[in-house]
């Protein structure tokens, strides 16, 4: 590790220089450079978070609108017509509008909220703070990463307002439906805008991801060896690696799609007769797109969940006053998940006519991925076992995370078994599975992160009581919404249906759908309460009076209450131990910066 030493000393020099710079002229007072084109990772984190929150409100609101249709297919809601115009003639949304809303809901939540909003926020905030760096390796690239995301957001937003509506082929955007304007009104300019927006989004992810990786590999403070990093950092690391390796594949898939749409190529098109004429395209494969898409698509679900896992590990340890159990096993399982995530994509394609022999390997590898997931769950359980748990909103959301991750992960075992998937594919069972394991869990991880690190971000606390109400309504509501959907899926009830009333096999769930929709509205309202709490607390929350409110060991709590650009006013502290010395040798916690004592027991 001698070159690590030199690396660190180099860094020391760099940081020293930076220090002077900081003390001499505070040119950061300029509004534009402080709040808009900021280079400070903490500000960029807040930008990601707030943009994510705005998108989350929009995306969740869309789900309320289409749940109204599902729950009350015969009712009319005149106010819908006033906001959606001819998309909701007479107060009832059209199928076209329904599919546009569903597609945008998926795209927004998967990519804009749970990818950019989640890992964008917390990787940015925590990587420099927890590894002991003044900022990202390239603050400028970091700033670009946000602004590419912002551009992507603008384009996606614009697509909502075009005459023919936004893309409406589902968030997976399968061709030929998405390739042919004649196949669907949403596949006209809506898909072009969707593809452009997503391309910008991929650029943003790559800029961010490369930055996260280089920062945490190269800019750790003295003593912070890889195995002393908190699990949050490990999870951000694997998240970034997944993104950097898989987003380019998605982009290539999108470029081929764009060419099929406009350059007359036939990558995905063959033997198509549409709008009264046969197309000239021959020899393409619509399935090729699915391979390219899911090669990102599956890693993407882990891009979403890994940061949440990392934060939950951290919060559970802090609030149980216990070290995370099996630190190395936690890293090992993250690593295993990261590798396996690249080898299971075709489990989304079991019924595409995939070669059954090939399918068998994907079954094996898919079920294999449940092993590291199980290890993580057992380690979390053991972490809280014999702890001394404080129920902050953050720790409650972490416990909720473990609960929903278990519930949703187990149904993955059903779906990963191709024979069962034949029956359940594209039904509400899949909706239940991934909303619980990804949607709800990732949101819980994100909420845990927000409640826990809000004091670091804004120097104030969020209101606890609202936090508790938020947690309980969301946990109960999430189960009420998604649990019964397993049954609908078992009955074969297909997803992405505008109306089930003409089906004898699926119309027995009318009452249930209504119930679910009502709960959705309640839960949505509660999320608004959270949003209110968030913004209110930024300005009016109870002020932080101590540096380390949660009595945590990690480095971010050694910075001042309101750290400036550069994070530590003086030297960056040196690290001597891992981040999980809680309740060791009778001491509540030992900060990472404290040297190992002469009589200290080994762990």
């Amino acid at each position: 590790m001698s070159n690590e030493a030199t690396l660190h000393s180099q860094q020391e020099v760099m940081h020293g220089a930076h220090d002077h710079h900081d003390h001499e002229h505070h040119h950061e007072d300029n509004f534009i450079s402080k709040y808009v084109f900021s280079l400070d990772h903490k500000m960029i984190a807040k930008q990601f978070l707030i943009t994510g929150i705005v998108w989350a409100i929009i995306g969740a609101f869309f789900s309320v609108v289409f749940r109204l249709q599902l729950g009350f297919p015969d009712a009319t809601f005149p106010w819908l017509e006033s906001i959606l115009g001819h998309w909701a003639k007479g107060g009832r949304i059209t199928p076209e509008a329904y599919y546009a809303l569903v597609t945008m809901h998926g795209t927004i939540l998967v990519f804009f909220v749970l990818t950019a909003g989640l890992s964008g926020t917390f990787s940015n905030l925590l990587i420099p703070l927890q590894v002991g760096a003044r900022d990202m390796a390239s603050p400028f690239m970091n700033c670009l990463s946000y602004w590419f995301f912002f551009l992507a957001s603008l384009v996606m937003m614009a697509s909502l307002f075009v005459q023919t509506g936004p893309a409406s082929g589902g968030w997976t955007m399968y061709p030929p439906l998405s390739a042919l304007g004649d196949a669907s009104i949403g596949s006209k300019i809506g898909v072009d805008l969707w593809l452009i927006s997503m391309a910008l989004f991929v650029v943003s992810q790559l800029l961010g991801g490369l930055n996260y990786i280089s920062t945490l590999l190269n800019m750790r403070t003295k003593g912070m060896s890889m195995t002393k990093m908190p699990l949050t950092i490990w999870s951000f690391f694997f998240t970034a690696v997944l993104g950097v390796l898989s987003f380019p594949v998605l982009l290539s898939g999108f470029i081929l799609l764009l060419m099929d749409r406009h350059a007359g190529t036939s990558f995905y098109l063959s033997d198509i007769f549409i709008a009264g004429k046969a197309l000239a395209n021959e020899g393409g494969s619509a399935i090729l797109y699915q391979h390219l898409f899911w090669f990102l698509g599956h890693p993407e679900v882990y891009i979403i969940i890994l940061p949440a896992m990392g934060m939950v590990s951290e919060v559970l340890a802090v609030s149980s006053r216990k070290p995370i159990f099996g630190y190395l096993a936690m890293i090992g399982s993250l690593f295993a998940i990261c590798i396996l995530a690249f080898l299971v994509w075709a489990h989304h394609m079991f019924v595409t006519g995939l070669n059954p022999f090939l399918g068998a390997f994907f079954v094996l590898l898919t079920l294999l991925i449940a092993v590291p997931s199980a290890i993580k769950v057992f380690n979390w359980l053991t972490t809280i076992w014999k702890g001394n748990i404080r129920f902050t909103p953050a720790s409650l959301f972490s416990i909720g995370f473990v609960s929903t991750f278990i519930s949703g992960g187990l149904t993955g075992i059903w779906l990963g078994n191709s024979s069962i998937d034949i029956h359940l594919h594209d039904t509400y069972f899949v909706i239940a599975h991934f909303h619980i394991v990804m949607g709800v869990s990732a949101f819980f991880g994100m909420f845990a992160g927000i409640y826990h690190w809000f004091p670091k971000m804004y120097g104030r606390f969020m209101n606890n009581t609202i936090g508790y109400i938020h947690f309980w309504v969301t946990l109960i509501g999430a189960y009420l919404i998604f649990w019964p959907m397993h049954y609908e899926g078992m009955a074969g009830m297909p997803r992405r249906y505008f109306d089930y009333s003409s089906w004898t096999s699926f119309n027995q769930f009318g009452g249930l759908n209504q119930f679910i929709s009502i709960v959705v509205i309640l839960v949505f309202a509660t999320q608004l309460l959270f949003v209110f709490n968030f913004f209110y607390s930024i300005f009016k929350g109870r002020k932080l009076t101590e540096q380390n409110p949660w009595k945590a060991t990690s480095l971010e709590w050694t910075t001042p209450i309101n750290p400036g650009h550069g994070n530590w006013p003086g030297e960056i502290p040196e690290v001597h131990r891992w981040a999980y010395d809680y309740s060791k040798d009778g001491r509540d916690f030992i900060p990472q910066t404290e040297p190992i004592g002469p009589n200290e027991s080994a762990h």
Partner: protein
Amino acid sequence: MSGFLAVLVIVLIFIVIFQIAKASEYVSILKGEKKARQQSNRINGFLLIAFLVLGLIGVYYCNNLLKGKILGESASVQGEGVDTLIYVTLAITGVVFVGTQILLFWFAFKYQEKEGRKAFYFPHNNRLEVIWTVIPAIALTVLVAFGLKHWFQLTSDAPKDAAVVEITGKQFNWLIRYPGKDGALGRRDFKKIDEAASNPLGMDWDDQLGKDDFMATEVHLVVGKPVKFVIGSRDVIHDVGLPQFRMKMDAVPGIPTTLWFTPKFTTKQMKEKTGNPDFTYEISCDQMCGSGHYSMRGVIVVETQAEYDAWVAKQPLQYSLAHPAPAEAPKADSTQKTVAANIGKP
């Protein structure tokens, strides 16, 4: 008006919650941080255990409420294997679910912060970690083994004597074609599609095999007789979903796919079994295919051989529909029943 009232009520509730929240914040400052924390800890600890108990009761209740509404027994022989696998998986995952949720909420409740309690410093234990790596691995291996056994059965080649039905998706309905007496589907070319000339599938009328093919608005199947579906699409990807038979296969333009199964019960028997006089075997489109996706419904009628034969006898040949002129019906080699080798694509 009522919408306005609803919004008003929600806003009021918000304000009330907010005021309470703000007040409780002040109270907790007055009481001292420690006291307030103890109190909220007790409340949340209680709620956690209550959630566990009520949640498990809820799971049971939900099951009672809904189990009658999901599919009963599989209507195909092949689907029985799927059902068995579902039950095995349900048993394994069910035990894990109940066990881990109980541990989670029970631990959270039991080890909530108490004055004088010290957390136990327990950073790792290799034995435990090996145990919970190996046990899931074994359980999953068992599931994979069972699963793949069924998977290879389900995806095996159809028996030689299986009937053949071609199902082609288009926005937004299913085109159903039977091979006729010769048992072989005639050649098709998407460039020959001509709706006006009664040729929605682009059949090549030069191909003798196609001349006795007929098209239908419903799929009719003989109970107890294996049937192979040859699946395709004319425009975008669709999916032939057969929930009662536990079968599903995408319909992809340019790439024909197949599935096969043996229906166990006639539609009539199912009406009795389910006690639902409206019971119908339905084909649901299970792949998003455009604005009419939700209405892409097909109907399957399973019946006895005699009923089936009577139905077939009534179906006009597509060739004659496409050639309404004096066109003579082709002389089919009715004595020989060739097996479907030609899957209808050049």
